[in-house]
């Protein structure tokens, strides 16, 4: 599992790669929560290289969403592979996250 942080204008992009399971969720949590700006954070989690996610990974994404919301920011996801999408659908996360097909679409949606 890797999490690569890049900046595109005012938007922080975290690219999650590999397996996001209970074993790797802790390090991803540190990286993702650490990247949330204290005020008006604008973030994209790019999942196009994410092969696997379990409930431990969803937990981290939900924590980040709660924090971003509390800081009056915006968080979007993009590029979910079919298996990852299935986990989002079953958990109801598809309807609580803004999900774009790819990074370009996610960045274009933020002013």
């Amino acid at each position: 599992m890797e999490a690569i942080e890049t900046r595109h204008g005012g938007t922080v992009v975290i690219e999650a790669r590999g397996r996001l399971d209970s074993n790797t969720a802790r390090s991803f949590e540190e990286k993702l929560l650490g990247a949330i700006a204290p005020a008006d954070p604008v973030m994209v989690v790019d999942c196009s290289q994410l092969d696997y996610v379990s409930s431990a990974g969803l937990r981290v994404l939900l924590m980040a969403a709660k924090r971003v919301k509390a800081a009056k920011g915006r968080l979007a996801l993009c590029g979910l592979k079919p298996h990852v999408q299935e986990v989002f659908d079953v958990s109801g996360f598809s309807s609580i996250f803004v999900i774009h097909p790819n990074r370009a679409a996610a960045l274009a949606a933020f002013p």
Partner: protein
Amino acid sequence: MIDRREVVLKNSLIEIERLSVVVDEFCQSHCAPTDLAFKFNLALDEIITNIVDYAFDDDAEHEIHVILCCTDGCIQAEVIDEGRSYNPLAAADPDVTLSIEDRPIGGLGVYFVRQMMDRVDYRRDGNRNCLRFARRIDPADESPEHGDPAPGEGMRD
């Protein structure tokens, strides 16, 4: 023909990835679609994570046995541990319609197992927790709705 494979894991989260390699290989050897291997890996991940995190009161090393078998066109997995008595099927399903603010952190793991599998049952056998789950191998079967049978019903040893 019944094909059976047993994997003995230590109670450590790093074992989950090692198990996933065996599960992928087992499903592949039975011509199961990759989606089925994904479902089994997810279900096993969730159950084993619960066991590693909550089943044992000490910090000692413990064994978790995972038995995969293929019979009558189904893949079945059984997870056996000697931790404290715990029936994961007794937990209520989470409300998956809540908003970000109201959504509790956690509680999805066992729900995933129920959703991904055709059948799930639990029994306490002496000092062991035994959880079994199965799903039919059928590339055309994408129906998400399969009712939960009574514990023990329709499962095969």
